[in-house]
């Protein structure tokens, strides 16, 4: 990190600030049609885009030390084996409640922590194992924006200094061009470029978040990890910043890992979403599959808990799935499926075996023994074939193939169809027969 003092940006180097003539606060607001034209509908999925980030079996175990001797007495399993891909120029949403590990995941991707296990492949390099020195140039391509716009900007640095710091650290532009680049960036995010000499406390929350985005954009990253970028903002400002992020994605082709707890915002920004619980991904799917056809009871509970404005027309509360109990501690998570202590449909097998993350549709994976749409959960575990627990004790080749694919990153061409309990591929079936649902007949090969 260069020892440049940001203070030398003031006055002397950039000269006195130009008079503020660019943005006129007295200008009338845009007309409604103009406003609508500048907004976006929900982001669309590009299935042909290659992955820019490929995370496999990522784990982060924090050691717990005993107070006296500093011996490790336990582990906090903050992130415990997750795999996903972020498509180039596209977005993946990561949702979950407090303690699920989504923020830690974001910090692992940007190497604020070094993972204890797993790989994060980015442009042929494994971010999990590169040295600090090798990480430095990679940091240009992987940037992060943070939740709290009030504490994530140094209050003693001017806005220009904040945005210029990455440029100077990585020596991306010659010193005499830094100012113009900073002003360009401020303009791109919708701020007045003449305000580079102001301090963060002179800006509102939404504007500060834009400053953070400008700083993240300075190095033209390929991947932006957004950790709850809009949660701390007012509702109308949230929409402005989301709009901005969508604008930037269209214009610069930046991929987003969008971490949030607000399911509705994530749905708008991300064509694909992963749901985390206690350090694991319980369901990952494209927008329609996850929101309209959720198969995991936790996803279903989350979706049913989100308050709905349309409910006003109907009146009263909706019927909800009520989860009992509290989220267990990540130090000693429940055996088998971690969600079983609060799951309305948990059974004995859930305590014995951890359900694998299985692909059940072209772009839909779920980790549940009784995966099924709301109200249609099967009576028998659907994973029994994959665990080779069929009644006759026979091993199941096709099922094992699927189980292997299940731990692979990304989506395969074949998946385990729940309805027919066989492996299907695209439009074709691998096996010949369509067996009895819930049965264990082997496919014919």
């Amino acid at each position, binding site marked *: 990190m260069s020892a440049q003092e940001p203070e030398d940006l003031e006055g002397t180097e950039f000269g006195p600030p130009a008079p503020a003539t660019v943005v006129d606060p007295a200008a009338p607001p845009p007309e409604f049609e103009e406003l609508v034209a500048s907004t976006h509908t929900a982001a669309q999925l590009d299935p042909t885009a290659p992955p820019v980030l490929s995370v496999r079996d990522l784990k982060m175990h924090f050691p717990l030390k005993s107070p006296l001797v500093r011996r490790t007495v336990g582990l906090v399993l903050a992130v415990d084996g997750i795999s996903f891909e972020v498509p180039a120029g596209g977005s993946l949403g990561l949702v979950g409640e407090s303690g699920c590990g989504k923020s830690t995941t974001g910090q692992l991707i940007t190497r604020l922590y070094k993972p204890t296990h797993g790989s994060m492949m980015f442009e042929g390099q494994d971010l999990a194992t590169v040295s600090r020195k090798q990480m430095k140039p990679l940091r240009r391509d992987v940037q992060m924006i943070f939740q709290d716009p009030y504490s994530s900007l140094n209050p003693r640095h001017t806005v220009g200094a904040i945005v210029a710091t990455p440029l100077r650290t990585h020596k991306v532009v010659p010193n005499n061009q830094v100012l113009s680049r900073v002003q360009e960036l401020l303009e791109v995010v919708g701020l007045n470029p003449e305000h580079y000499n102001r301090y963060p406390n002179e800006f509102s929350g939404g504007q500060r978040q834009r400053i953070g985005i400008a700083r993240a954009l300075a190095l033209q990253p390929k991947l932006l990890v957004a950790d709850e970028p809009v949660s701390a903002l007012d509702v109308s400002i*949230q929409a402005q910043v989301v709009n901005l992020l969508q604008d930037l994605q269209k214009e610069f082709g930046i991929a987003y890992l969008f971490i949030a707890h607000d399911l509705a915002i994530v749905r708008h920004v991300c064509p694909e979403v992963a749901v985390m619980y206690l350090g694991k991904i319980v369901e990952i799917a494209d927008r329609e599959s996850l929101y309209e056809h959720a198969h995991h009871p936790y996803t279903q509970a989350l979706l049913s*808990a989100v308050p709905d404005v349309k409910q006003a027309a109907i009146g009263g509360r909706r019927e909800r799935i009520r989860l009992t109990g*509290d989220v267990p501690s990540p130090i000693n998570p429940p055996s088998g499926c971690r969600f079983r202590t609060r799951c309305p449909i948990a059974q004995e097998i859930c305590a014995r075996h951890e359900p694998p993350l299985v692909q059940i549709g072209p772009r839909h994976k779920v980790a549940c023994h009784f995966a099924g749409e709301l109200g249609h959960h099967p009576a028998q575990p659907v994973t029994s074939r994959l665990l080779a627990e069929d009644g006759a004790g026979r091993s199941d080749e096709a099922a094992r193939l699927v189980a292997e694919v299940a731990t692979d990153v990304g989506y395969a061409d074949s998946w385990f169809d729940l309805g027919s309990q066989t492996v299907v591929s695209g439009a074709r079936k691998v096996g010949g027969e369509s067996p009895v649902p819930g049965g264990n007949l082997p496919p014919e090969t």
Partner: protein
Amino acid sequence: MTTLMSASGAAAGDGPLLAVDNLTVRFPTADGLVHAVTELSYTVELGKTLGIVGESGSGKSVSSMAVLGLHDSRTARIAGSIRIAGEEVVGADQGTLRRIRGNVAAMIFQDALAALHPFKRIGKQLSEAYLVHHPQATKREARRRAIQMLDRVGIPQPERRVDDFSHQFSGGMRQRAMIAMGLINDPSLLIADEPTTALDVTVQAQILDLLQDLQREFNSGVVLITHDLGVVAEVADDVLVMYGGRGVEYGPCREILTHPEMPYTWGLLSSVPDVHADPNARLIPITGNPPSLLDPPAGCLFHPRCAHVHKVSGDLCRTVLPELVPGPRGSGHLKRCHLPDPESIYESEVLPEIAPDLAEVADVGREG
């Protein structure tokens, strides 16, 4: 059951539980006078919930703190009237205010971790709330009542947890403990200031359930302050939308959320995506920033950000402050706007962009 205390000794049911009339709150600061709340009026009945919706700077929290007289009388300048069960709060002496607080009217706050004393046991804090208004009670009675309330709000093993500290509770349980503390004296009025904002969505749903349950049981009136329209939609009977310290739309919840008549409300509804929305729905922000309370704009407070200001002839929006009056949908639905025909604008322009599926239904309904 609640017992209403009224200065005139009038029977319960005489007039609304809470009546705020032309409330104005101003704070002198080094930069000038901040007009936090201006001429705000609303009422709340027993057994009903009023949702107050607004963003930062709308004045929603300031006005609610004024209801309990929690502002520093040396700095805040409060005018207008606030009557709780007939008793006037504005200008009341400290003794009256202390009698009302935590007793007739109680308030619960947003961040339970900060709002509960970190050094005192939960049980002590609850007992204290009880003993302040029941000085003859013994410590044992107060403790028993505390355990009873903790049980009532759904905290497991209350006899054990009553001696815990607030940081030993999870977020949801802390909020429940705060609700227990607010309701320990059976208040007629409960003001909840963003009670679920800091909580996870599943916990939020549990807390809202609890509040509704308790309201039904105690028949109290509830004021729920939030920025989340979804919460209001599910829980509130009436809605008051605030902007820049003023009420800008007021009416029954169903009315306001299905037939909003004020561009700010449209803006709020457009900025909030729906979990089951049409993928073609757009997220339409409100441009600009909230108004300065030091130097509020002339005319309508919202005009610098209103995308429909061009639809009003002449200079009306810039020069004349609209009154909060009934709109085309009847006397129960008040709005503060100059637009002559908000309904058609909403249905023809706004709704198709933010909820195309609903707009089609509305079209079909109208044609058919």
